[in-house]
């Protein structure tokens, strides 16, 4: 399966298993979503369970909160992460705090799915990675899968979770494990082991990272598309890095990170989002708090630049294998 099929499969299974699950968003119903993640679900589960909404993101999340208070389990789509801002008040002030402010009388068991990241010539309004805006809000969980197997297992866990989950889908990974070499032909998921997705219901638990590559020289903390960029940079530099795919940014699997950094003595943090106040800043702070006396070099960050995502110059913006590779070499010389 590719990642689109895996995500659809997770929703399909949950719609069949739990009649409180509902799926809705812009173009999600009859048409099946602009990325086809919900294709066929309305025909199969009915228009009362899977339906289109007006182009009104604060309304999508606002009605989902009300449905959650009633007892439903909405899994909604924001068409692009770049469109989530109108819904931010409903997410940050309402969904995130409802359980706490009502002392558990009400809560918001929502999943808010949204395609994230660049690399498809989407310009500044179809390329952003706003994960740090969600990890900063207490009460939210934030998930970023990097492959079809995880996407399905994490989405099932997210739908079953009783807290609001922001589910960011790296759109450049929908069809294959993209490593930043945009000039090369793309590789489909059918050629990747993590494209093998069981048909049955299974979990990938929230809050557990995966070590994608064992190594001894440096720890690379990555998520989403950047996992494959890291793999490419490691292959090209020959540096024996350990690559950790965080999978869930919050709650964060700090134990796996700490074990790895204490072993390697070096840490690099990479993400596609802009640098300043990005999630990488939090990772740097946490790593120095817990691993300072094991560090042999300053922690490096390789990220998108602090500019809007430029349409024609997106490969100059994107933190590809060349930038990650030269940072790796620089770290090893320190």
């Amino acid at each position, binding site marked *: 399966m590719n990642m689109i099929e895996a995500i659809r499969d997770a929703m399909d299974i949950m719609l069949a298993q739990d009649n409180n699950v509902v799926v809705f968003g812009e173009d999600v119903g009859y048409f099946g979503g602009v990325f086809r993640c919900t294709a066929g679900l309305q025909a199969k589960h009915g228009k009362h369970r899977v339906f289109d909404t007006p182009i009104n993101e604060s309304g999508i999340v606002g009605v989902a909160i009300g449905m959650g208070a009633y007892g439903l389990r909405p899994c909604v789509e924001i068409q692009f992460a770049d469109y989530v801002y109108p819904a931010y008040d409903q997410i940050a002030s309402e969904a995130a705090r409802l359980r706490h402010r009502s002392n558990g009388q*009400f809560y918001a068991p929502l999943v808010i799915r949204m395609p994230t990241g660049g690399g498809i010539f989407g310009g500044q309004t179809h390329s952003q990675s706003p994960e740090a805006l969600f990890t900063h809000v207490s009460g939210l969980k934030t998930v970023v899968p990097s492959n079809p197997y995880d996407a399905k297992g994490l989405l099932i866990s997210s739908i079953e979770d009783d807290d609001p989950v922001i589910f960011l889908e790296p759109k450049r990974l929908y069809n294959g494990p993209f490593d930043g070499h945009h000039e090369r032909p793309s590789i489909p998921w059918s050629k990747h082991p993590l494209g093998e997705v069981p048909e049955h219901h299974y979990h990938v638990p929230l809050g557990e990272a995966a070590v994608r590559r064992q190594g001894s020289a440096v720890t690379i903390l990555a998520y989403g598309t950047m996992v494959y960029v890291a793999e490419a940079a490691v292959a090209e530099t020959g540096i024996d890095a350990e690559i950790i795919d965080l999978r869930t940014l919050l709650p964060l699997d700090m134990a796996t990170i700490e074990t790895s950094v204490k072993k390697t003595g070096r840490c690099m943090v990479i993400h596609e989002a802009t640098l300043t106040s990005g999630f990488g800043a939090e990772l740097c702070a946490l790593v120095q708090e817990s691993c300072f006396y094991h560090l042999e070099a300053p922690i490096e960050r390789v990220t998108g630049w602090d500019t809007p995502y430029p349409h024609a110059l997106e490969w100059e913006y994107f933190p590809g294998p060349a930038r990650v590779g030269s940072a790796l070499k620089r770290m090893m010389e320190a």
Partner: protein
Amino acid sequence: MAKPNSPIRLHVPEPAFRPGDTPDFSSLDIPAAGSVRRPTVDVSPEEIRDLAYGIIRVLDDAGAAVGPWDEALDSATAIRGLRYMMKTRVYDQRMVMAQRQGKTSFYMQCTGEEAVAVAQQMALQLGDMHFPTYRQQGLLIAAEHPLEELACQVFSNPGDVLQGRQLPVMYSFRDSGFFSISGNLGTQYVQAVGWAMASAIKGDSKIAAGWIGEGATAENDFHSALLYASVYNPPVILNVVNNQWAISTFQGLAAGDSATFASRAHGYGLASLRADGNDFLAVHAVSRWAAERARCGFGPTLIEWVTYRVAAHSTSDDPSQYRPQGEASAWPLGDPVERFKQHLIGRGVWSEELHAKAQEQIETEVRQAVRRAESLGTLNSGSKPSIKEMFEDVYKEMPPHLRKQRQQLGV
């Protein structure tokens, strides 16, 4: 008439009266009680567009119930309604005093607006869900929710079911059909629509009631709510409490000079009514109409309740800075408690003596309930809610980073 190409000036609406002026509402168009027709609950919205500009009234100036909206409410229920309104007012007075005595940080009264919440609660059923603002404490009192629990919340004491997490009066009582008040204006309006959509998805018969003040209709969430209500036709009552003032901002800054809040529904093709919010019988009848319409599957109704915020916005506000002193007593729709009392006396089922006796009973009841709450502590005396609990309920299960922070606080 101005000539084309002469300088264009920005129009900034102003209220008719400011401090020092003598308020005069004689230009306000108030139809006679009983003069607005009562359509059937399956009426199409376009057939009742005129009802968004009138004011549905049942009680006339002499206190008699007149016209097609008079439901001939039985006297026992009516007296119960009067007592709930009186209790709401007494509770408000008591809690303002407690705030002045430093027992809590903040309080918000609903003086003059008691009928809106009390009568609507009595028109709905157990299992329906209100998504209130901070001025609908009457919903809880009419639901006979224990007053002591309200007071404990205001005092943020160990008896507070919200563990001192929320600002005073931002209650949440799920079992009494009262959704958690956010404090962010307007956000709950679209959530009410979502709750009603869920009821329809599940084939349930319960309805939701969204509440918003006229000032907050300017928020995006109001328009999102009307949009989703119009698209999915869920069983929801969309209440707009037009009490004329949003802190210091008069209603014209939310509606402009020419529209009514009820007419906002027209662009969305929603049924809309405008009613006298100080008339208990009108509120009850109009709420019942909207509830029946929703329960029969005919969809949402927006209702503008025309009322007046007699008290300050909150204990942190001083209205003498922005509106004339005598405005409340000049308000032409009168006082809801006084009007309903006169009606019941006119019916022969109530008297000044019974009223005075009821007032005394209610004052005792409220005083005792608030005292019981106070005995558990107030914001500045007695024990506080557990500090350990502060970290609970951020998530269903506490993640490691919060556990660590709780350890850092030493609890």
